[in-house]
């Protein structure tokens, strides 16, 4: 039937590969897959690796900041645009412009902008504010935040579009009712509209988490994981080890742990989907 291609892809490619990854993680494969099993050694090595833990900690920080930032800024922009402004089309287009660029390009540009010697800090200091500091990208304790900045810059447009579409679906009579009730606009957004947008928030959350989980290009182009490995992310850790370090087994172990994390994160969504379908009935 029509589902066969997609199901083949799902079963063979997604799940087959996940299992393969798990199997490899139990071997001592280096550059190429070899099937000599060593039990959970790779996991022991993985969990003893400081860089891995930094990466895991970073994905939490980055995920929180990036997803949070996209949601907050995307929603705010959508609200501003939804207030019935002129030139709406222009603003919308501008905000979606970065979407057309790849993460590599985004990373390169922002590396310039945030480079203290070249970019913003330098430019502001030249304007006369000589104590201005914006050197996060070179600070081990701050570099991870720059990833979120660049990521938000790129994805905020998509979030804005999703939220805007959601806002447009709100019954205009709700607005009338709240005006008659004399409720200030910001409170309407806070108490009435925002709770109504739950599914949109959910969609945005899922899309953005998928991006966080796969974040590789952006790190490479922006910070290269540095200074040191302070802005490393699991996807980069895994790819580095699989492709550049002859540590296929270790990389696979990392990948498998990452995938388990993914499943833990999205299983609420899956649950939500299933439950909604069951309750939904006629809708």
């Amino acid at each position, binding site marked *: 039937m029509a589902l066969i291609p997609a199901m083949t892809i799902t079963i063979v490619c997604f799940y087959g590969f996940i299992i393969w990854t798990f199997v490899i993680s139990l071997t001592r494969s280096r550059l190429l897959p070899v099937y000599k099993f060593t039990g959970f050694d790779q996991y022991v090595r993985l969990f003893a690796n400081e860089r891995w833990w930094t990466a895991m900690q970073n994905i939490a920080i980055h995920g929180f900041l990036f997803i949070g930032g996209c949601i907050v800024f995307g929603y705010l922009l959508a609200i501003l645009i939804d207030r019935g402004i002129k030139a709406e089309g222009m603003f919308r287009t501008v905000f979606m412009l970065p979407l057309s660029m790849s993460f590599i390009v985004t990373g390169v540009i922002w590396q310039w902008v945030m480079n203290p010697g070249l970019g913003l800090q330098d430019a502001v200091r030249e304007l006369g504010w000589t104590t201005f500091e914006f050197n996060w990208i070179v600070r081990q304790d701050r570099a991870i935040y720059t990833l979120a900045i660049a990521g938000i810059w790129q994805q905020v447009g998509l979030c804005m579009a999703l939220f805007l579409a959601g806002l447009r679906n709100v019954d205009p*009579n709700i607005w009338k*009712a709240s005006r*008659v009730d004399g409720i200030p606009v910001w409170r309407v957004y806070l108490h009435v509209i925002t709770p109504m947008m739950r599914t949109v928030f959910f969609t945005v959350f899922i899309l953005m988490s998928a991006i966080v989980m796969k974040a590789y290009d952006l790190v490479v182009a922006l910070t290269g994981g540095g200074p040191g490995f302070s802005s490393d992310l699991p996807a980069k850790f895994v790819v580095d080890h699989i492709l550049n370090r002859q540590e296929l087994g270790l990389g696979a172990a990392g990948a498998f742990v990452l995938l388990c994390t993914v499943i833990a994160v999205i299983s609420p969504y899956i649950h939500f989907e299933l439950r909604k379908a069951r309750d939904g009935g006629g809708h």
Partner: protein
Amino acid sequence: MNGVELRGVTKAYAGLTVMKDINLEIEDGAFLVLLGPSGCGKSTILNMIAGLEPVTGGSIHIAGRDVTELEPDERDIAMVFQSYALYPTMSVRRNIGFGLKMRGMPKADIEKRVDDIGELLQITPLLDRKPSQLSGGQQQRVAIGRALVREPSVFLFDEPLSNLDAKLRADMRVELKRLHERLGRTIVYVTHDQIEAMTLATKVVVLDKGSIQQADTPENVYRRPANRFVASFVGAPTMNFIDGKLVQVGDGIAFDGGSGQLPLVDLPGRARELIGCPMTLGARPEHLVFDDFGANARVLLAEPTGPDQYVRLAVAGAEVTARTGPEQHFSSGSDARIMIDGARVSLFDPESGQAVL
């Protein structure tokens, strides 16, 4: 002194005039129904009264105060929408109390007011549900509760019952009527259902294409429609119209539809002046009576509805509907004799459509 007055109100959207010079006075405690076909401007008038749409010209007064420039919440009004517009994520209790909370009323007072309203509208057991867990009629009640709780001087209703099924609509109609009698507040009510207009209103305003066609008591609107539009819009089945002229037949007057004459018994005396002029006769179905001395007619179709029977007839070259009791059986194609109650007919100028009698 909580009446509403519209003085020379006009409204244009992007240069296109949709309301022309509306003058309307709504007395304190009135139940005014705005009736008209879709797109005639009923909601626009309501929104202008509420302050949700600015007027293009003219002014609006509520309780003697010029409110033309005020915000909706400063106008001392409350509004109920066709789609209810309940806040979907809040419980019924919060829906009703939200406006009060925003005004900074203390929590305990809000609770009390909401409880009172809940009792009044018999929705106490529903107070902790979400709107999506309510039936249409219950949602409707909550929407009314949300309006009531603020105790405004004027209530505005925009087709509040049109989403309900027939039976529930009938029940809610009675409830609204009682509510109005009990509260004695001014109500402006939009509908396109004549039964609602007839049963609820103390005054009906019939609108068409952005202007007032007739503003009068329901009875007069039904009995003495100001023009052909009002006549055809109000009443179901609709009024029968026959083009022709009045003729003198012996002692009495009859209506000549071209291919046959209809005797009009009890026609008011001044109708004599109109004899000979081209004319449109308007007669409601219930005023067509089967009578052996009436004009010849042929039965086309009989529709028994339970308490009544609608009979479509061909008479005097026109097709008309008569309403009668369910007892008599009419078979399609059979002959009948029909008489029109002359005291109840309307006569319209065929050119302008204005009532001449």
